[in-house]
């Protein structure tokens, strides 16, 4: 039985015991979409340079209801991010939320299963927003996640409270015995005036195949402010498709940083739907790849209402035979006058085998706007290299210093010091040098 047949069977089994409710229709529609669209191939406009079809040629254990894993709290210690002592920690194992491994420290943070949330006071929120990302990510792999949405969680950040504890979300794949396909899903609702830091990270243990197809939808209400960090440094053999979908439904502020350091195939979709006036979003990304990694960042900033500001800077360092893709779309809808939208993508290739495909895309339907975009692909600056070497710094260290220097203006946007130092450390280790 191949993976697709297996998935279909799981879907039918789960649906037959599914009591119904709000999520059932959403799942059935999504499954139909998945059946129609299938796994995206290179023919799909958004999947030209990233091939995931072959990942479905192998068999995965896919048990969205019972994640069969002995993953323990002790093992979690090994993958925890620094600063966890103060953090709320939400832990997913093989796609399912584990309340026993998770820690909630903030009274203003509510975590429920989506199934529960859709039946209680949060019903309207879930009804309005769950699945909104499908308007932006129209492919079978995204539909596949939505087809099993009732296993996901709902995170509510309450009104007018400053959450002093960041929310760390771990997606653990326990691939110690069999290949694992996991599909974490969450809907985060950030209430008016709330401030929150969200941090996502991924860790696979075990050497079997690991494929994570993850979706997070985040609703940002009026005067709310979100810092969002995604840190990807999973094992060499792991694959993931990861969608983060922001919906700014009131004037609000987003600061998003995506750090991608490892993985075999990593595809990120980051959407910002600016559905209110005077929204602001800052998007930063750093991908530093070696070996045979392939990392694809697709971003969409959709200016729907007037007077919004977005600023985007993604930087890439690509070594060995690694490949990178950057695709950044900015839409300015007819109503969105006085939009300010800026985008820049800069890459350096460290080897002859490394490559990058970068494509900015501006679609502007309003006339009174300020937009700019630019992309560069280059090599390490020879002038700079000679300057450092002429001061007695050996070539290897000089290169490392220059690569690190290139990354700095992304690193400095990681506001929590512990995380910034952590990422900096990972980069320095890769470069085999100590920051003086």
């Amino acid at each position, binding site marked *: 039985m191949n993976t697709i047949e297996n998935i279909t069977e799981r879907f039918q089994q789960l649906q037959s015991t599914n009591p119904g409710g709000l999520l059932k229709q959403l799942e059935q529609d999504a499954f139909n979409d998945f059946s129609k669209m299938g796994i995206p191939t290179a023919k799909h406009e958004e999947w030209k340079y990233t091939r995931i079809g072959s990942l479905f040629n192998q068999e995965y254990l896919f048990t969205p209801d019972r994640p069969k894993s002995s993953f323990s709290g002790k093992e979690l210690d090994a993958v925890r991010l620094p600063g966890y002592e103060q953090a709320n920690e939400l832990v997913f194992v093989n796609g399912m939320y584990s309340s026993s491994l998770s820690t909630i420290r903030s009274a203003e943070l509510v975590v429920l299963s989506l199934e529960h949330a859709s039946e209680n006071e949060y019903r309207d929120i879930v009804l309005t927003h769950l699945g909104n990302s499908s308007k932006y990510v129209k492919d079978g792999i995204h539909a596949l996640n939505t087809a099993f949405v009732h296993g996901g969680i709902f995170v509510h950040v309450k009104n007018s409270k400053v959450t002093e504890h960041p929310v760390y979300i771990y997606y653990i794949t326990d691939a110690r015995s069999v290949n694992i396909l996991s599909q974490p899903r969450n809907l985060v609702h950030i209430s008016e005036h709330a401030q929150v830091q969200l941090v996502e990270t991924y860790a696979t243990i075990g050497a079997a195949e690991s494929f994570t197809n993850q979706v997070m939808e985040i609703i940002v209400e009026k005067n709310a402010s979100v810092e969002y960090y995604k840190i990807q440094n999973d094992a060499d053999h792991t694959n993931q498709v990861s969608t983060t979908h922001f919906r700014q439904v009131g004037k609000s502020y987003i600061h998003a940083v995506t750090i991608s350091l490892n993985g075999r195939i990593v595809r990120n979709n980051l959407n910002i739907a600016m559905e209110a006036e005077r929204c602001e979003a800052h998007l930063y990304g750093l991908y530093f790849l070696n070996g045979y990694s392939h990392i694809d960042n697709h971003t969409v900033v959709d200016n729907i209402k007037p007077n919004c500001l977005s600023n985007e800077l993604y930087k890439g360092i690509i070594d060995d035979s690694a490949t990178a893709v950057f695709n950044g779309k900015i839409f300015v809808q007819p109503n969105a006058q006085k939009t300010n939208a800026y985008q820049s993508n800069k890459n350096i290739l460290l080897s002859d085998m490394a490559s990058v495909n970068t494509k900015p895309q501006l679609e502007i339907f309003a006339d009174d706007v300020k937009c700019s975009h630019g992309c560069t692909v280059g090599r390490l*600056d*020879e*002038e*700079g290299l*000679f*300057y*450092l*070497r*002429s*001061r*007695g*710094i*050996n*070539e290897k*260290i*000089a290169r490392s*210093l*220059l690569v*690190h*220097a*290139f*990354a*700095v*203006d992304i690193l400095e946007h990681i506001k929590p010091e512990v995380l910034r130092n952590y990422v900096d450390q990972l980069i320095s280790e890769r470069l085999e040098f100590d*920051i*003086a």
Partner: protein
Amino acid sequence: MLTIRNLHASIEGEKILKGINLEIKPGEVHAIMGPNGSGKSTLASVLAGRSDYKVTEGSVTYLGKNLLELSPEKRAGEGLFLAFQYPVEIAGLTTTNFIKTAVNEIRKYHGKEPLDAVQFLRLMKEKMALMNIDQSLLSRSLNEGFSGGEKKRNEIFQMAMLEPKLAILDETDSGLDIDAIRIVANGVNKFRNKDNAVLLITHYQRLLDYVIPDFVHVLYNGRIVRSGTKELALELEERGYDFIKNEVNEEQEA
């Protein structure tokens, strides 16, 4: 200390240096002057080990070693220092980190332990005072957004930190205000001793009023066409390069 014999160098097939001869002994200050494009910076770059220049003929011996065989970092380890005419801007690398790495790499080259944070800070404070450089400048990205004068002072500051044996200063006086020239000259004079040497590339007499050269050379069209003492610099200041160009061209025609 440094012996250059019949040095020829080219870049992208273009012959720039066409037979340079120069001997520098410990304790000496040499000045090289010459019109724009004559090859002064090329000479400095070849000595520092820039790889895009090809040496096609001749030899350079430095402290008994074949200089041309050494990598740029080894040359620096051996005490060669070039203050760049156009210092490179490196965003994201703080000047302090850069200098600390350089100081410790050169110490490593000599088999010495790296300076710890306290020792380094002490050394830096001392040289900062000497060069009248502000801490805030050093905590910024290397040369990024520095004014012309700040870049030049930063070069001399690096020289003071690295304490080389042979310092080549490529137009370090250009673009400096009067006070800054005095500071730079003072830095160079403090640095001078009987064991090290300085090669000053300059267009102006002004710096030479403060740093008195033992020899002045005129580089023209890839060759040293005149050598003399500090009076030669004064004569050039007064008469310009034309008389030398004319003399050289007449000699060649003859």
